[in-house]
């Protein structure tokens, strides 16, 4: 019993320690109850951007703060290191794309530190947060053999002048849909093997694609401590082209005027012709009255 209790205590303490030492990808700065977060993003291996988020803790909830001006610097806070300025939107997020002037620095270094800082004017206490990332790219590829479709992805970090595949990294492989990404297979996340390659079998054959049957595959590295957030897409003809009902051009109550339903046209026109026929008949009767009047005048001299 005593040994059992001791084991349980050790496990509990170990868990608490783990929670304590776990670091998030980005370092958060908390002043009073306001939080500033900075994250690094690279989409389709093009121009990276830094995302900053300001949130306020209200009870147990974090509420987005709109309209906070945030400056983003490279390496340390200094005017010459300023990468850009942004103002947080209604979601509390603001973005700063790395400027063209930063290209030389980007090409020459393999590791970067980005520092975000709010104005003292905007926040009662100036907030600061930073994130350090290694330069990496994400590549995606596909293969088909014996009717089996496979997606492979590699995260490659810059080592010297070469790009080297990173081993044991977790990559999400999915299919881009309107409101989010669907997983390509059974698992949501795949871990790169000893060669740094992540692969998954594509099992969703009946997925509706665009008019040509194309779907978009997505590989993502999310909130990685070392590499930040990377995302790459690839369009493949693995979906089904939807056969859309061409009902828009049929005669209906919601189509254009020249495609009104026959029954409605017949009904409306018969009423219109009927009523206006009577009106025209009555106008003709008026002319008859007029003619009779003239004839009566002539008869009376």
């Amino acid at each position, binding site marked *: 019993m005593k040994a059992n209790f001791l084991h349980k205590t050790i496990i509990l303490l170990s868990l608490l320690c783990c929670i304590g030492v776990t670091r998030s990808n980005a370092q958060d700065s908390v002043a009073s109850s306001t939080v500033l977060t900075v994250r690094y993003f690279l989409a389709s291996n093009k121009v990276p951007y830094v995302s900053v988020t300001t949130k306020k803790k209200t009870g147990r909830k974090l509420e987005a703060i709109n309209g906070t001006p945030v400056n983003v610097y490279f390496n340390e806070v200094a005017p010459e290191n300023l990468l850009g300025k942004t103002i947080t939107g209604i979601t509390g997020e603001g973005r700063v794309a790395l400027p063209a002037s930063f290209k030389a620095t980007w090409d020459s270094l393999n590791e970067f530190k980005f520092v975000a800082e709010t104005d003292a004017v905007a926040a009662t206490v100036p907030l600061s947060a930073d994130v350090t990332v290694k330069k990496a790219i994400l590549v995606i590829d596909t293969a088909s053999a014996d009717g089996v479709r496979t997606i492979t992805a590699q995260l490659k970090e810059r080592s010297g002048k070469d790009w080297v595949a990173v081993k044991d990294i977790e990559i999400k492989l999915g299919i881009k849909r309107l409101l989010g990404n669907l997983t390509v297979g059974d698992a949501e996340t795949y871990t790169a093997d000893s060669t740094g390659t992540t692969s998954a079998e594509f099992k969703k054959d009946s997925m509706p694609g665009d008019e040509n049957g194309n779907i978009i595959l997505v590989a993502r590295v999310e909130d990685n401590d070392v590499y930040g957030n990377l995302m790459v897409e690839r369009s493949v003809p693995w979906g089904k082209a939807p056969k859309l009902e061409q009902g828009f051009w049929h005669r209906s109550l919601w189509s254009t005027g020249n495609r009104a339903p026959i029954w409605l046209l017949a009904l409306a026109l018969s009423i219109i012709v009927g*009523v206006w026929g009577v*009106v025209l008949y009555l106008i003709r009767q*008026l002319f008859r009255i007029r003619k009779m*009047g003239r004839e009566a005048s002539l008869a009376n001299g």
Partner: protein
Amino acid sequence: MENLQKFSAEKITNDLLPQKFGPRGKIWTASLLVVAAFGAFAYVQQLRKGLVVTNMGDYVSWGIYISNFVFFVAISLVGSLITAIFRLSNVPWRTPLTRISEMIAVSAITFASLIIIVDMGRPERLLNLFIHGRIQSPIMWDVIVISTYFCISLLLLYITLLPDIRLMIIAKEKLGKTFSKLYRWLGGFWKGTAGQEKIRDRSITILCVVIIPVAFCIHTVTSWLFATTYRPGWDSTNFGAYFVSGAFLVGAGGVVVAMYVFRRVYKLEHYITDRHFEKMGRILVMLALLYLYFNVNEYLVPAFKMKKEEEAHLSGLFAGEYAPMFWFAIMVGMVIPILIVVFRKGRKPLPMFIAGVMVVVGAWFKRYLIVTPTMLHPFLPKYDAPARYSHYFPSWEEWAITAGSLAGVLLLITLMARLFPVISIYKTINDHESELPS
């Protein structure tokens, strides 16, 4: 008109011929002209600057103009009520009321058409309704049925006027030469021959038969402009009957007011008698009860269920922003007139006039309440909309145009009353002669 038995045809003709404006008539006409001119000025402003001068927006896209349009359409129903229904059911006391009701109907439907053009913002696009119109749209049905009703009402007024025009041409010495050319152009061909009489009688009967379904259509289709859209307050299968009953009520109220005014101004006590007020009072109370019944259906049933989507709309009407106007419209437009007119003493000319005014005023606000609060409570939640979009109060241009259009209707009635007899002389003499002992 049993009290006309001592009157000669000449006396009746002299009494009923149109009269020149006295000082009060001139002031009245000038006042209407000023208000109408101010409305025209506001409309020019709207034409120059666009609908931006109004306080309508993304949510209240139908404001006071459409309320006014529905009011005019409603009051125009009186033409079919008094002329057609009374004639076909052979109501013997209808003669002094038919011309008045036809004049009101023509004036109201004219301005109903005009106010729609005002609401469109770009009058030159009116033609597009006919060129590119969709027969599937209730708005298109309304355009068709309004133009049809206008033509039929005008024909009804004109054909019934023909014998009177002849009398006015004969009485040109008394009437002066100012309008004699107009009278000759309008009805100089009317000789009163048997053939002409026969065609005229048959034409009036045909018109009376046709105008009733067309009048019902115009009010039903106008109600469908609302009921065919899925919105709180409009999502009702009852709307056609609700609108028709309301239109009958306001039309009858309008006729009562006009009866009283013409009786006093033109001293027509022998022609528009207490008996006519008594009869119209009975009709008015019946129509008010009927409309009240439809109102109970329209509001009580949704309020009993109080669906979430309807709650804000109904709460706003019963106890919220629109509560004073809502209860004013119910009490002043229906309940109090019923309480006045249900008693015999209330069916005397003055109380009837007061009840008629209340009905008409209440009806105008009722139309405003049908249109505007619903627009403020769409089913889809308002997203990222300025706070002012949640309220609507017409701009001065909207008020001026509305007042101008109301003055325009009254001006048109006044001018028609100046040009033509407000009571059919020909029919009155015929009725009189048929009542005389042979």
